[in-house]
């Protein structure tokens, strides 16, 4: 290649991959997502009516950590995220192992488990609200048939958050399962072969081959469902509206309630709290999950 051809190719390469290709996406993203996010840092420090904002320092945040129902919302959010992501990991893994084995009707099983992922969350929430009715609901009526007195799933303050979390798992476990299936089929068969020659039992196979080698899938499932759990709003809103009392309120439902009540500054502070909560919990979590293991 001659010396004069080099700059020509460089110029061409630049216009082949033009920087302005970023521009339309950058404008939409900056104006409608980044700018409000940055603005929220200021407005969370104000008493705000949308027309004028009075600077009040950290009062909104102080209120967030003083009012018992707001603190409960914060605690509930973490509990909800831990329960849903934990159950999705365990159940998703079990279903994926089952679906990658020689089981009959695999297509049917896979479709049936995955389909709820695509259904409207509000529709699912309303359906299960009816199914979980303490006396008329199908779940408790079925339990009564075998002589068990079912609990008041959504009306018992101790149980409401947990019941919503169960429905979340019902709806979302299909996604965890397909992620695990993708992870499991990528494990080379040689490992199982070697384990078989060494006389490993099925359980040993699972704990010493499948589990460690599906670690990337586990990291994905935990991260996704943990973030989703922390941000969850629609399912809670469709099922309990945060009730009974404030028993199943999460930060996201608090944000909506404060917005409806016209406390825009407090609502925005809720947004910032949720943002910090996600950053503080998820960043170390992903770093821990994606760390290199000692023997690799």
């Amino acid at each position, binding site marked *: 290649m001659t010396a004069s051809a080099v700059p020509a190719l460089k110029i061409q390469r630049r216009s082949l991959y033009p920087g302005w290709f970023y521009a339309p996406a950058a404008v939409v993203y900056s104006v409608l997502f*980044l700018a409000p996010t940055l603005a929220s840092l200021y407005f969370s420090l104000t008493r705000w009516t949308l027309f004028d904002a009075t600077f009040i320092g950290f009062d909104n945040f102080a209120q967030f950590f003083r009012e018992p129902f707001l603190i409960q919302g914060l605690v509930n959010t973490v509990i909800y995220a831990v329960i849903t992501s934990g159950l999705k990991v365990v159940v998703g893994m079990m279903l994926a192992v089952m679906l990658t084995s020689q089981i009959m009707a695999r297509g049917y099983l896979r479709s049936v488990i995955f389909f709820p*992922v695509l259904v409207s969350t*509000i529709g699912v929430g309303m359906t299960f609200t009816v199914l979980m009715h303490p006396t008329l609901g199908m779940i408790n009526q079925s339990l009564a048939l075998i002589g068990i007195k079912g609990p008041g799933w959504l009306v018992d303050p101790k149980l409401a958050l947990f019941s919503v979390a169960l429905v979340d798992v019902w709806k979302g476990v299909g996604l965890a399962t397909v*992620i695990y299936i*993708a992870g499991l089929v990528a494990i080379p068969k040689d490992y199982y072969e070697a384990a078989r020659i060494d006389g490993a039992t099925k359980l040993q196979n699972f704990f010493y081959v499948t589990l460690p080698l599906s670690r990337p899938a586990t990291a994905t499932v935990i991260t996704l469902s943990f973030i989703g759990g922390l941000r969850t709003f629609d399912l809670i809103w469709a099922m309990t509206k945060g009730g009974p009392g404030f028993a199943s309120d999460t930060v996201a439902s608090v944000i*909506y309630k404060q917005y409806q009540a016209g406390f825009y500054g407090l609502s925005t502070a809720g947004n910032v709290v949720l943002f910090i909560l996600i950053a503080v919990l998820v960043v170390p979590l992903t770093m821990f999950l994606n760390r290199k293991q000692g023997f690799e």
Partner: protein
Amino acid sequence: MRSRASLFGGIAAIAATFVVFVIPFLFIILMAFKDKQQSALRDFSWPNGFHLFENLYEVIKTRNWMMITAFINSSLITVVSVTLLIVLAAMVGFVLARRKTKWNGLIEFLILAGLMIPPAVVPTIWLLQGLKLFGTLHGMILIQVAYNLPFSIILYRAFIATIPRELDEAAVIDGARPLDVFFRIILPLLWPVTVTNIVVQSVGIFNDFTNPLYYLPGNQNATVQLTLYNFQSQFSTAYNLLFTNILLITIPPLIVFMFFNRQIVAGMTAGAVKG
């Protein structure tokens, strides 16, 4: 012996998934066939009489044919925002995968931030009001584009990285102008991941409840997810209509699922593993 055990295991799995995953849907269907009195019992029983069509008619004409408006609105929002998403995300993904500059790190950070950070609701409303976009379909479409861009970009970037760079250069040598390289060579090659993008994002945007709730108030702006609340306030216990409504809005995702099952799973797992 072994095959008998796996036979029992298979039957047990089919029975268990039937109870857990299929019965709730059967319940929805049965309720949609019932009349008001029978549906009020909320039990798992055979409908006495076929009332699906009258329920459907009732659901569609409620609140001055709100369901029709809602389906039009939701379809418009879904189609336009997915189209915009695909063009914008493919452009970003293309340059991001091909050109390594000092900006790449910042862009990757912004993409991850977009996936993680919950949108700041009230400041967004304030901003939309300032732009005269609050409560309009245009505003809603742009919001959906902004919120869903990061996921689409990730899908595209991963796919573009597998297309050899020599192809671009060969096209240039054959006389293609720079923009032709993207729009006439690369974009058609991206078709598989474009289908995945279309399917995954359409389902997500069609099912979105939270964003229309905040940014698109007003009856004339209703989207299909919001129609579900029609029967809680107005009829209080019209369970037959509520479940007919649920059945009605479950049909579009069901159709998509039947035709694009493979692409949905591919998109959700690929995007997930990268993200």
